[in-house]
């Protein structure tokens, strides 16, 4: 057995030289977000694969793995898949997206509104 097997999976994860900036107060949050974003990406990959399977089944009734690997969307399918990914991104990114809206319209805490309603 050679010990020189090149572990490409480990190598793909190599860190870029240069100290990573810290974005959050708690360094664990950095790791959590990186895991979460990787999963967000992988779910998108699964959805796209499912879409490929469905399209191939629609077109041919029965499919092989090779069909999936060699599938190339035509222009219309490519657009529909792009829109599907976009829709997915909007759904998972709701939180940060709503932060933008909050910035556009600052609102009083509901507790304040509650006090107001009591009086009117």
């Amino acid at each position: 057995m050679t010990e020189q097997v090149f572990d490409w999976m480990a190598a793909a994860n190599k860190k870029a030289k240069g100290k990573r900036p810290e974005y959050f107060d708690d360094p664990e949050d950095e790791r959590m977000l990186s895991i979460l974003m990787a999963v967000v990406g992988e779910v998108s990959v699964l959805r796209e694969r499912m879409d490929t399977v469905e399209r191939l089944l629609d077109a041919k009734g029965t499919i092989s793995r090779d069909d999936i690997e060699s599938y190339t969307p035509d222009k219309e399918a490519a657009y529909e898949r792009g829109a599907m990914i976009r829709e997915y991104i909007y759904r998972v990114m709701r939180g940060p997206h709503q932060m933008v809206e909050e910035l556009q319209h600052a609102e009083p805490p509901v507790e304040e509104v509650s006090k107001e309603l009591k009086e009117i």
Partner: protein
Amino acid sequence: MSKTVPNDQKLDVAPPYNAVARHGVSPQPSHDEIARFDFLANFNKFMASTLSPGNKLAYDKRVLPAFLKEHGREPQDRFEIRHAMNKDPFHKFWSALKRNSMEMRQQNGRAIVLRQIDELNAKARQYNEGAQGVKSTLELNPEIAVPRYQSAVDIHCMPGSYHGEELPGDVSAGANYDCGIFATTGGGLGALTDGGGQALVDWIKKERPGWEPRRVLDIGTTVGHNIVPLALAFPDCEFIAIDTAAPILRYAHARAQSLGATNIKFIQANAEDLSRWDDGTFDWVQTTMFLHETSGKALPKIIAEGYRVLADNGLMLHLEQPEYSDAMPLFEQFLRDWDAFNNNEPFWSSMHALDMKDEMVKAGFDRDELFETGVRAVVDREIFPEAPTGEDEDHGRAAFWHAYGAWKNADQMQEAAE
């Protein structure tokens, strides 16, 4: 999946990764690897167009007011804005997401390339080696050292940088660089990531119809993305493309050969010292998105050397993102600086603060020989969208460049810019 696409409406979505053209040494992506880049391309679009406006809102609504209160004055420069913004919860989260997207692009690209590295190396060898060994159009010089400005950090978070090898003599750095640009630019650079080079071809044919340069030097060519279109457009011209990094040159040479650009010689050389070429050797000295990856002392040396080897009536042209002039709002400068500090581009900020005209005059040009123009990526608009500029652009990555140029000792022949 359910139908969610209204037929009457065109959403801004990235083209599919399938539309990326394959050449002789392209890594072959699997279905899911394609899907990973499809996700990232669309995610980066979302970040630039939908989330990024939150940065300006956070600045206007709370960061600037707090700064004014604390200091009794406006921020003086982009650095003060950055330090203040780095404490803002929205900007922090946006930056963290964007950093992750950059890291994912690298991981995804490396995974595609490294799982097939033996095949890729073999394919590259087929193009790089002829009956007599390595072809004369590829010259590697192991004595060329990696400059400190290239080794200090891995530029744009590319693990191993341009010069790193996973296996001795491999092409992984070039293949990873090549395959993932689609993800960070949402396809804005076209099927062969050569929208900049295509634009140069269009530009020169309009600017100097019928001009046939004899010899062209491309400095910091990387995988030759933007020099191959020029080499194909001027088949009788001799092209020299230099870079300090051997792994990407191996890939660049194989890629160019497979695309039929056999008139480019790729040479491992450092642009700070072009002494192997006599004065006036080249009719055109080109850099494309290169100078920002050098350093304060190297940049003037490189431009001066470029000037020296440029012939009279010759063209020097630098394509970069626009410089931070006084006319550019400080907030925009701060946003354009994101890559400097978050994506390992340590010279980016200082470089864009330079006055490129002054630098070119220092190198020997007359001020009235200089011109500036804008260059927009030329891509197949049927498939690849026009990259957004202005509010929606992903600052620093827009497929629209600023060109700083000069025709040496030929000021009377050159009308300024577009």
